[in-house]
C-alpha cells in the first residue's frame, strides 16, 4: 500500500507537471517577454528591438538595467492618436457587435430551446455546424455579398428598392455584420444552456396565475438566463476587441481596430516595442472582462465538481 501510494503520488506529479510546464514555456513566459520588449527601445535591426535583459545577465546587472527601462513605447502610444483612436473604436465596435449578437441570438436560442426535445439536438447541431468551418471563408463570403458591385446591391438594384449601391462594404457596419455572423455560436450556446435548463413548471405557474406570455418571459425566462447572457456577451466581446481578420477584410482603409493597427505596426512598420506595448495595453483593457469570465468558469467548474 505504502509503495503504491508513493508511486501514485509520483505519477500524479507528472500528470500536472507536463501540461503546466508546457503552459509555462509557451503561454506564461511569452507574456513576460512581451512586457519586457514593450519596455525596451526601438532599434532598427533584426530583431527590431534593443534587448533589455539577456539570459546571461547577473542579478546585479539586472537591477542596474531596471533603472534604464524605458516607457517610451507606452508614451508613444498615448501621444500617437492612431492608437488611442484604435482602442476607442475597437471597444465601441465590439460593444455594438455584442449587443447586436445578443439580439440576434436570443430569439434563435429561445426558439431552439422551446422546440420539441426530439429535434432540439439536431437544431442545435445545425446552428453550431458553421462554427466548424473556416472562419476566414465565412468572413470572405460577406465580401461578395456586401460589396458595391456585390450580390446584395445587385439584387436590391434589380428589384428597384434602391437606386444606388448601399455602400456598406468597407464601413464599420460591415465589421459589425461580420462579427455578429462569426461569433453567433459563442452567444448561442451559453444562452441555449441557460434557457433550456429552466424548469418549465415556472412558466406554467405564471400562466396559471394570469401572466401574459410577454410578462412571463420578462419576469421569469429573461432573468433566469442572465448568466447565459453574461457568459455569451463576454465570449463575443473579448475576442471581438482584438479582432484582426474581420476589420482587415470587411473594414475600410480608414477603419481603426487595435488588432489591425498592432498587426500593421508589427509586420509593415516593424516597430516591435510599440506593437508589444499595444498588446500589453490591449491585455490590460481586457483584464476586467477576462477575470469576470474566469470567475464564471471557475464557479461553473466548482458547481459541477
Amino acid at each position, binding site marked *: 500500500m505504502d509503495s503504491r501510494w508513493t508511486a501514485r503520488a509520483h505519477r500524479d506529479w507528472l500528470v500536472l507537471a507536463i501540461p503546466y510546464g508546457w503552459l509555462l514555456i509557451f503561454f506564461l513566459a511569452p507574456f513576460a517577454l512581451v512586457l519586457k520588449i514593450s519596455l525596451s527601445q526601438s532599434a532598427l535591426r533584426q530583431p527590431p528591438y534593443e534587448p533589455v535583459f539577456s539570459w546571461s545577465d547577473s542579478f546585479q546587472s539586472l537591477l542596474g538595467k531596471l533603472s534604464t527601462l524605458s516607457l517610451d513605447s507606452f508614451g508613444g502610444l498615448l501621444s500617437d492618436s492612431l492608437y488611442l483612436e484604435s482602442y476607442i473604436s475597437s471597444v465601441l465596435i465590439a460593444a455594438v457587435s455584442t449587443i447586436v449578437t445578443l439580439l440576434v441570438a436570443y430569439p434563435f436560442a429561445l426558439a431552439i430551446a422551446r422546440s420539441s426535445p426530439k429535434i432540439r439536438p439536431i437544431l442545435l447541431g445545425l446552428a453550431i455546424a458553421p462554427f466548424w468551418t473556416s472562419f476566414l471563408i465565412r468572413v470572405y463570403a460577406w465580401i461578395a455579398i456586401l460589396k458595391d458591385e456585390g450580390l446584395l446591391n445587385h439584387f436590391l438594384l434589380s428589384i428597384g428598392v434602391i437606386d444606388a449601391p448601399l455602400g456598406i462594404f468597407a464601413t464599420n457596419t460591415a465589421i459589425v455584420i461580420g462579427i455578429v455572423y462569426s461569433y453567433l455560436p459563442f452567444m448561442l450556446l451559453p444562452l441555449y444552456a441557460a434557457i433550456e435548463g429552466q424548469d418549465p413548471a415556472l412558466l406554467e405557474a405564471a400562466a396559471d396565475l394570469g401572466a401574459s406570455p410577454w410578462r412571463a418571459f420578462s419576469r421569469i425566462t429573461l432573468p433566469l438566463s442572465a448568466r447565459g447572457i453574461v457568459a455569451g456577451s463576454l465570449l463575443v466581446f473579448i475576442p471581438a476587441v482584438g479582432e484582426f481578420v474581420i476589420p482587415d477584410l470587411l473594414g475600410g482603409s480608414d477603419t481603426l481596430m487595435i488588432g489591425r493597427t498592432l498587426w500593421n505596426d508589427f509586420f509593415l512598420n516593424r516597430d516591435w516595442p510599440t506593437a508589444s506595448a499595444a498588446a500589453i495595453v490591449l491585455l490590460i483593457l*481586457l483584464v476586467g472582462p477576462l477575470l469576470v469570465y474566469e470567475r464564471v468558469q471557475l464557479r461553473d467548474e466548482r458547481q459541477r465538481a
Partner: protein
Amino acid sequence: MRAGASIARTGALAAGFAFLYGPILLLVIYSFNASRLVAVWGGVSTRWYAALLQDAQLIASVRISLLVAMFSALIATFNGTLAAIALVRFGRFRTRTLFAGAIYAPLVMPEVILGLSLLLLFVALGIERGFWTIVAAHATFTMCFVTVIVQSRLVNFDRALEEAAMDLGAGPVRTFTAITLPLIHPAIAAGFLLAFTLSLDDLVIASFTAGPGSTTLPMRVYSQVRLGVSPEINAISTLMLAVVGIVLLSVAALSRRRAQ
C-alpha cells in the same frame, strides 16, 4: 395563443438558419459560376476547380496545414487531457488559480496577442520560425479546448469504478488504460477533432509563427482574399466546406449509431 407562439418560433428558426447558411450557400453556388464577375451569372462551370489542381503552391500549403493540424492536435490532446485530469482530480493545489487561468485564458484571448507573444518567445530563444514553431503555437492555443471537453466528461465520471479496479489489484497505469481511458475516450476524440479543426482554420497565430516555406492554407487563401473576390477562392472554399461537412456528418452518424 399557442398557434401564435408556434409561428413565432418557426419564424425565428427560419430567420436564424437563413442568416447562418445563406452566405455559405451563395459562396458554394458562385464557385460554379462560369463568369469571373461577382454578381453576374455566366452559366455552370467547374473550370475554377480544374484551375486549383494546377496550383502547386496551393497544394503544398494544404499539405503543410494538414501536417501542422495533425501534430499540434496530438500534442494538444495529450496535454489537454492531462490538464483536465489534474484540474478535476487534484483538488486544491498551490498555484491552481494560475494553472486554471492559463488554461481558460487562451479560449477568449485575442489571437494577435497570443501570436505576438509566441513570436517574441521564438525570436528570444533564437529558434528559427517554420513548421515546428507553428505546431507548438497551435498545440498551445488548442489545448484549452481539449481540457474543457475532457473535464466536463471527467466530472460526471463514477470514481467507484476506478477504486474497484485498484482494490482488485490493478496498478494505477492499468486502471487508467482499462477503466478511465475507455470511459472518457469519446471526449478525448471530440477534443482532438476540435483541436485539429481549429489548427486547420487558424490564420493569425500561424502568420506570426510561420517562417519562409511554411505557408499554411489559410495564409495562402488570405493573401489572395485581400486582392478581392475571385472564383478560384470560391472553389477552394467550397472544397474546404465540403471536407468539414463530410466529417461532421460522419461524426453525427457515428454518435447516432452508438446511441442506438
